[in-house]
């Protein structure tokens, strides 16, 4: 399966860092979105996107709202979602998990952690 990532973050710096990390991991196919609403538009316009990496704190539709919107959409609900965020308190992680996040990376992250979480998600989906 060819992976096409959607990298969602309001910070240009973080979008570039995640994109660079993906390139270093050998994933060249990705698009970017600046917030949750932009991400939903991109998902509606491009059905080949099959992996979402999203930040939590974003203006308008947050990462958690985006996750909930994805999980409640028949067409999108099975898409893997990896949350990459500064929010490291237990309550937040539980909220994300309850909303249906597939895995959770806390910033600042290393490429190893990103790779590990992407692989864990892919393993679950390939089972």
């Amino acid at each position: 399966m060819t992976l096409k990532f959607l990298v969602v973050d309001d910070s240009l710096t973080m979008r570039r860092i995640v994109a660079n990390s993906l390139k270093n991991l050998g994933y060249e196919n990705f698009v970017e979105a600046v917030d949750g609403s932009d991400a939903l538009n991109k998902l509606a316009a491009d059905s080949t996107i099959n992996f979402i990496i999203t930040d939590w704190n974003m203006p308008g539709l947050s990462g958690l709202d985006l996750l909930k919107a994805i999980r409640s959409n028949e067409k999108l609900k099975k898409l893997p979602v990896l949350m990459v965020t500064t929010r490291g308190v237990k309550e937040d992680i539980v909220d994300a998990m309850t909303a249906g996040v597939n895995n959770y990376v806390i910033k600042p992250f290393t490429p190893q952690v990103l790779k590990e979480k992407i692989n864990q998600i892919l393993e679950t989906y390939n089972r």
Partner: protein
Amino acid sequence: MGSKNIVQVFNKLDDLKLVFNYGQKIIPIIQNLIDFMRETVPLLENINNSISESTSKIPKASHKINDVTHATELATTEILDMVDNISGEISKLEKTYDGKFNEMKSIFTAEELEGAKESIKKIKDYSNNITLSLQVQDITAQQLAAVNHLIESVQKKLGELINDIEDADLDKIDRMNLELDEKITFDPNASYIKKDDHQKVADMIMDSNNLSSQEEVDKLFCK
């Protein structure tokens, strides 16, 4: 007028005398109170002016913070561009090295060639590490946004205080409204800590797929 009435008049006069005596005692106290208020009013005005002045400076401080965030984002983007350029050049060098490996074997020793390859790998790793360290910009931006939020709260409270003192001079308060950058959202607890403790906690929770409540999570962490 009978003697009884005269006695009543004298009694009333005695009461009046007592009132005058009491008045004589109380007048200096009232005078002191007036003097005190006379001295206090300028002090209150000073306090009011100081609060007004401080409040009027808050939007400036807030804008400065936003400027810092934008400047650091710009600088970070420039650094990322430079790191990308370095990585691109290194990749070219690596290709050349791999392509001319056999030719170089006759010029350099195996040790030297291995050392060069190791150096190329290290430069690539360092470049990647620079990129990752720049996550600090996003985290700092969130911390600054949290400070801005705090400043906004202080500004609102000071505004209310000035309203109370100046009997609702709303026009003046409106002029001091903050124009916060609504595009900035933040995590008040954001921190640039390169420890994997937080990630471990996240992993533990994520691994416990059956956990669905805070209570269960707390049990997991023996709270």
